[in-house]
């Protein structure tokens, strides 16, 4: 195995999170490096989403430390470096007044100042993100009228519009058909391989992307392993993770 000298994007040490005294996350330490494509897997209720929410500052940790791009989370200000695509992609109500272009533009909101007009750079970033995710032809449509797969691409386009260095996706593929899902996985792979984007991806479908990812983080309250995906898939940790009868279903895709 080669040693990765790239700088750390996320560095978590002895992270714990409790609600009413019971552990949700217990003593997790991990590093995600620049350019890495890491999948976060584990049973429902095992704390995957909580871990991500802690990283993003949406929940307050009980103990431990979180560093983002080498900075303590409290002192971290460059949030535009992180593009976040949440779980709720399929829950946008059909009457919400937002065209695809208006949603993608939200990705520029935080970096633009108050009262400022849209700059050339803002427009380019939005255009580029829409092209990359192949939603340019949908830009006048309401997001509420799109299919699950199209919405998913719009939400990623919004995340990309802020020109992030890392993309965090929390199972944004519920209610999305197979064809769109495969296209989505191909896009993530391309973003990682060609654009050098660091990706942290919560998924329950790790078999499909096993060849694309470099790291698999198995979370069930604690971090069970942090390894090369092919090693992990065959190791006994999987049965600890999913229960004694678990066995891996191999998907083949080319």
């Amino acid at each position: 195995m080669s040693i990765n000298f790239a700088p750390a994007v996320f560095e978590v040490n002895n992270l714990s999170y409790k609600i009413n005294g019971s552990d949700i996350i217990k003593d997790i330490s991990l590093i995600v490096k620049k350019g890495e494509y890491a999948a976060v897997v584990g049973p429902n209720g095992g704390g995957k989403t909580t871990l991500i929410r802690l990283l993003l500052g949406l929940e307050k940790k009980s103990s431990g430390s979180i560093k983002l791009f080498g900075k303590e989370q409290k002192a971290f200000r460059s949030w535009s470096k992180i593009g976040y695509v949440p779980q709720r992609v399929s829950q946008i109500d059909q009457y919400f007044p937002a065209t695809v272009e208006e949603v993608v533009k939200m990705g520029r909101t935080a970096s633009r100042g108050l009262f400022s007009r849209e700059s050339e750079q803002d427009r380019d970033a939005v255009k580029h993100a829409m092209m990359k995710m192949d939603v340019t032809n949908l830009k006048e449509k309401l997001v509420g009228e799109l299919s699950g797969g199209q919405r998913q691409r719009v939400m990623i386009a919004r995340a990309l519009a802020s020109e992030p260095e890392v993309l965090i996706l929390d199972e944004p593929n519920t209610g999305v058909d197979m064809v769109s899902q495969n296209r989505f996985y191909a896009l993530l792979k391309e973003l990682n391989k060609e654009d050098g984007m660091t990706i942290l991806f919560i998924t329950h479908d790790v078999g499909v992307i096993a060849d694309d990812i470099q790291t698999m983080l198995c979370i069930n309250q604690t971090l069970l392993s942090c390894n090369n995906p092919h090693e992990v898939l065959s190791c006994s940790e999987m049965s600890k993770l999913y229960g004694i009868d678990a066995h891996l279903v191999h998907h083949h895709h080319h």
Partner: protein
Amino acid sequence: MDIFQYDFMVNAFLAGIIIAILASVSGSFIVLRRYAMLTETLAHVALVGVAIGMVTEQNPIWVAVIVSVLSAWLIEYLRSYLGLYSDSILAIFLSGSLALAVVIVSVAGSFNASLFSYLFGSILSVTNEDLIVMAIFGSLSMAVLLGLFKEFYFIAFDEEVAQVSGLRVKLLNFMLVTIIAVIIALSIRVVGTLLIGALMVIPTISALRYRLGFMKTIFLSLLFSITAVLLGMTLSYQFSLPSGATIVLVILAIFTVSIVINRK
């Protein structure tokens, strides 16, 4: 037009247009955040300000502005820091402030027609001083709304993603409720505290039926709101109807038409 031969009608129309613009634009964010009941609650809170103003013989509008802004902050604090259910907080403030207003006014022995005019609006009694207060606070609120327009929109769409992108969501939420409180207090002369909710909520809800993007929805809502105020005031003048109620009935008619022509 002979409707403008009286100064008070000119004042009334100016005040009406200011309120129509402010209420529909600010109301759209509240509607999208499913927080429409905040408008009802703050309208009743503003009544406490009116009562204090009447008893202490200050201009009731600016006392109402101060009281409703302070209450809006308290409501937002209870909601976001103490985690109380927001609809219950609103219910408590709504009835609590109405009770307080009634007690203040009756202790001072001035429970009279004047208070009634704040409940249902009395556009014909808009004074020059009222108009100045409305113009000052109105342009301040409009400046904040325009300056933070894209931020408020992002938060209405997805509060958490907005926060992760680096927006200071809690501060921005305080800003939004502050402006809403100011606008509600300003508008009680025109439509009255019991009717202002309609002017903040119904234009946007009607515009949403047309399924347009955000900017187009805002403009349509603005159009509905201004039409309702102008038409409502004209009708109220011609037929001697109470102005606030007439405005609300016109906007309800627009809502009904919007539902009917957009049904599937």
